[in-house]
């Protein structure tokens, strides 16, 4: 099976988020970048599918040279080759356009994107790719089994799950459940050594038409101080929630 995994390079989940240039740009200073957590589940699933059915796993990332560290990590985990589109990913439409161009010029049985990225949280790239390549799409995918030319999928719906069948090729928006947290792969020394010599192709963007722009950012208002209630006086808490916060 020929699988494409779309990987986003995002701030480590423990990062404090700050902005610079008059709050118009994310301040990457001192930030550790990681594979987008949703994409990590997709990458491990792709490795498992490759091991059971044969084939190749390609990863694609839209970004400048700074995203290559995260791409090498994906190669160290086991992807066979990597493609970087040399453009800052700041808009879902332009990002999806570039990835779709690559898909059309090559041929894949399965395209796995994350449900969303933990930085801009657009959650739109997978669905846009599906439309641009005219393929079926299942979002928030928490289960995937491939049998020949078709797939059985489970998607998360509010308060439950839905079972779906589809023909391949298709696009999915993945998340935890695709594989379990405990199954996630981390690079070993051999993988890291190999990743240095695996192909990382850089392609130039075709258009870079952005449908949306960012104006500025702000941090949410900080909370005031926490009002402490003694553990032996739980009725006071109930009273505060009822009369002060007026919430119960």
């Amino acid at each position: 099976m020929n699988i494409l995994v779309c990987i986003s390079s995002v701030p480590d989940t423990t990062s404090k988020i700050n902005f610079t240039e008059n709050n118009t740009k994310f301040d990457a200073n001192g930030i550790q970048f990681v594979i987008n957590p949703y994409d990590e589940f997709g990458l491990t699933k792709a490795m498992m599918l490759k091991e059971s059915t044969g084939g190749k796993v390609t990863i694609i990332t839209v970004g400048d040279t700074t995203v290559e560290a995260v791409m090498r990590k994906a190669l160290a985990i086991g992807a066979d080759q990597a493609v970087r589109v040399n453009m800052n990913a700041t808009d879902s439409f332009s990002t999806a356009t570039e990835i779709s161009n690559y898909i059309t010029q090559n041929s894949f049985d399965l395209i796995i994107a994350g449900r969303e990225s933990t930085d801009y949280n657009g959650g739109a790239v997978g669905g846009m790719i599906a439309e641009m390549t005219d393929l079926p799409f299942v979002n928030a995918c928490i289960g995937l089994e491939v049998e020949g030319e078709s797939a059985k999928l489970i998607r998360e719906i509010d308060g439950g799950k839905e079972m779906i069948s589809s023909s391949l090729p298709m696009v999915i928006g993945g998340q935890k459940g695709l594989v379990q947290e405990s199954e996630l792969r981390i690079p070993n020394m051999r993988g890291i050594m190999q990743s240095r010599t695996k192909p990382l192709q850089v392609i130039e963007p075709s258009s870079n038409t952005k449908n949306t722009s960012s104006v500025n950012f702000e941090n949410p208002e900080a909370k005031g101080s926490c009002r402490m209630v003694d553990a032996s006086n739980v009725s006071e808490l109930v009273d505060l929630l009822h009369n002060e916060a007026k919430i119960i």
Partner: protein
Amino acid sequence: MSVLVYTESWNGIFRKSSFETVSYASETAKVLGTDVIAVSLEDVSDDELNKLGNYGATKVISVPNINKGDSQSAAKVFLDLSSDSSVIICSNTYTSKMIAPRLSVKMGAALLTNVISVSEGSDIQIKRKSFSTKAIETAKSNTEKTILCIAPNSFGLIETGGSCTIEKIDFSESGSLSFDGQETASGKISISEAEIVVSGGRGLKGPENWGMIEELADVLGAATACSKPVSDIGWRPHSEHVGQTGITVTSDLYIAIGISGAIQHLAGVNSSKVMVVINTDPEAPFFKAADYGIVGDAFEVVPHLIEEIKKLKN
């Protein structure tokens, strides 16, 4: 020029978030000087459709013969209906976010998701949650038409007392996916829409101790949730995991029991209006983000809390 709004239904019933999107559409229509047309997919009764009028829809277009998970067909329906609309609105759900990206490509329309504010002018500019709620982004549309996905619980319901007309449309095409059934926990309150959420962490020591969490949720009419470690070790299902990589909570009240409050957890829950923390460790970082806190053993505090709330409710 009407504002078009997709009102998502489940088993023939509209969720609170669907009414919120109609209220949001109504406010947007005021800015644009136009009216609101709601679009409903799947089989929904006239009684249920009529409820949309009370939030500002003047007309409802019902398309019964379509599965909302079939985003290929749904996007076609919306493309046909949106030729005169410059703004299309839906809820920021997994299902709507299968349809909206497709539609945005078909229409050449900008797509803004996770939206929490109404645009003040006809050049669409809104606030949206980003960086997993660690930041709020002001973003704008660069195109003539715009699709907005509204974050649940971020925009209040506004009842107008109005009424709507209903038009039914036949649509016989279907896309390539086949739907093999759903499994839903009956009677469970949805975490993303809940007004109150009761959440447990590793401090509860084991899945056998969740009875008191469920009882507390029950007396409050709340949804139950859990921290990431709890879902990772399998004490609770993944569908209850709230936090940066789980479900985002935007409730009025969030009660965290035995959760230390790592930054990843806080990122997913800190849009809640009031947060209560119960933890044995006075140094737990969650207390810095909370409104009310109790340092104490959950196994003693929670049963008392249940009793006191029962007293209040009676």
